[in-house]
């Protein structure tokens, strides 16, 4: 039943997204700008890791795509709430988990699609990375998207107007990006900054994807990153499902 319900909601949400070119491409702008205009600045710099500067930057840009894109997923639900669609669905026997999963899986699909486009552009700019590493990167994008979209929906369900939502998300995403070392590795900075960054779940994800991009698959970073990504996703989906169950309170 859960599979049927999730597939139903996923299909509906995906059809809605496919109708709008804006919805399909909106998360790409920021990472593309960084790729095209910031990336070339790094090619001569000593960044500390193995591999080229692209192999250091692109993993960060992939996660930046997930971070800034999926965090704003909640806007769609605020609009649906306004139309009465969310309550209408909650009155049917559809599983509450499916109401969330269908949506976050749609978001994961859309952002992995954008991630593929981003990587293709990066290859054109000079990225060379092992295929397995690139695919692992996409898996992390999917997991991050599921986590952040779920939390974004949970927050949006509790907000009555869109006005407060944007600023709240903005206040969280920029510091997250900077503190996680998405643009440049935190190891380049002073010890206190590096230590602070270890409080950010994203730090572990970007370290794991950077390892994948140089072909190092069996590292401590990869293990930690996988655990954090999966744990974060499970926690976020649990929180999100509860909000769909008790909304209106």
């Amino acid at each position, binding site marked *: 039943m859960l599979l049927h319900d999730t597939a139903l909601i996923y299909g509906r949400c995906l059809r809605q997204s496919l109708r709008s070119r804006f919805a399909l491409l909106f998360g790409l702008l920021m990472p593309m700008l960084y790729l095209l205009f910031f990336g070339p600045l790094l090619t001569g710099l000593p960044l500390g890791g193995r591999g080229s500067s692209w192999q250091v930057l692109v993993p960060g840009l992939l996660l930046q795509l997930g971070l800034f894109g999926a965090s704003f997923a909640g806007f769609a639900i605020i609009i*649906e709430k306004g*139309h009465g669609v969310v309550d*209408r669905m909650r009155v049917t026997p559809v599983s509450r988990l499916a109401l969330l999963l269908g949506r976050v899986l749609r978001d994961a699909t859309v952002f992995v699609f954008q991630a593929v486009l981003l990587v293709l552009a990066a290859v054109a700019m000079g990225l060379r990375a092992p295929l397995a590493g690139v695919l692992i990167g996409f898996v992390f994008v999917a997991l991050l998207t599921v986590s952040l979209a779920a939390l974004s929906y949970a927050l949006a369900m509790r907000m009555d107007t869109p006005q407060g939502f944007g600023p709240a998300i903005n206040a969280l995403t920029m510091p997250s990006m900077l503190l996680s070392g998405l643009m440049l590795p935190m190891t380049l900075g002073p010890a206190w900054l590096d230590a602070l960054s270890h409080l950010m779940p994203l730090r572990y994800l970007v370290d794991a994807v950077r390892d994948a991009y140089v072909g190092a698959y069996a590292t401590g970073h990869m293990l930690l990153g996988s655990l954090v990504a999966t744990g974060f996703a499970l926690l976020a989906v649990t929180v999100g499902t509860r909000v769909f169950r008790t909304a209106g309170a």
Partner: protein
Amino acid sequence: MAIISTVSLARTFRTKSGTVQAVRGIDLTVREGEIVGLLGPNGAGKTTTLRMLTTLLAPTGGAATVAGHDLVKDPASVRRACGYVAQSGGVDPQLTVREELVTQGRMYRLGRARAAERARELAHELDLTDLLDRPCAALSGGRRRRLDIAMALLHEPRLLFLDEPTTGLDPAGRTALWDLVRRLRDDHGTTVVLTTHYLDEADALCDRLVVVDGGTVVAEGTPAALKLRYAGSADASLQDAFLALTGRSAAPADPAPVAV
């Protein structure tokens, strides 16, 4: 046979400005095949009561049995047996009427073919066939409301909840909707519970009225009985009865003309 039976159903909200007791203890019994109206001024707790009975909101007190299932312990079964039409509906304006109807049917666990068949049946019954492939945004007023009702009927529920179904409709639309509600009960045996603050609607449509004010039931009975008991005579207006019961009128006079 009681299809709804509640005992001291209550709901308290915690807001920034303190707790709000929206519903203070409602005892409600609805028999199968009745058309029952929850009548009361704005803010009386009618919509909150309806949202609790349709499992959208968990009660903070009391108990209820809806369509033979405990509301709190088995909400999924309650959902299977009920249909709900919110005050402002619930369709996505960008999607077509057909798509919304079919997806809704499948959310009620109808098979793909059966959902498509039900969508066609309901479109025919509710005079929406020409609009099946138009986007929902293209419908206005009465048609939109008929679509909202169709969305709630795909799974042939025994019980239909309507929240202020004729608010915002023109007089022709209102009478058409009343006819539709009567047809649902007469042809399909559907029990209908609706909320309203329109006294003419309560009088014309409902077999029985439950007057709600301040979160509790202040009176109940047939429209004729209420008029007799509270306004002195069965020929009095429901307005007088309501005034006597709650000390104020139900709603500002409807500015729409009586006849077009």
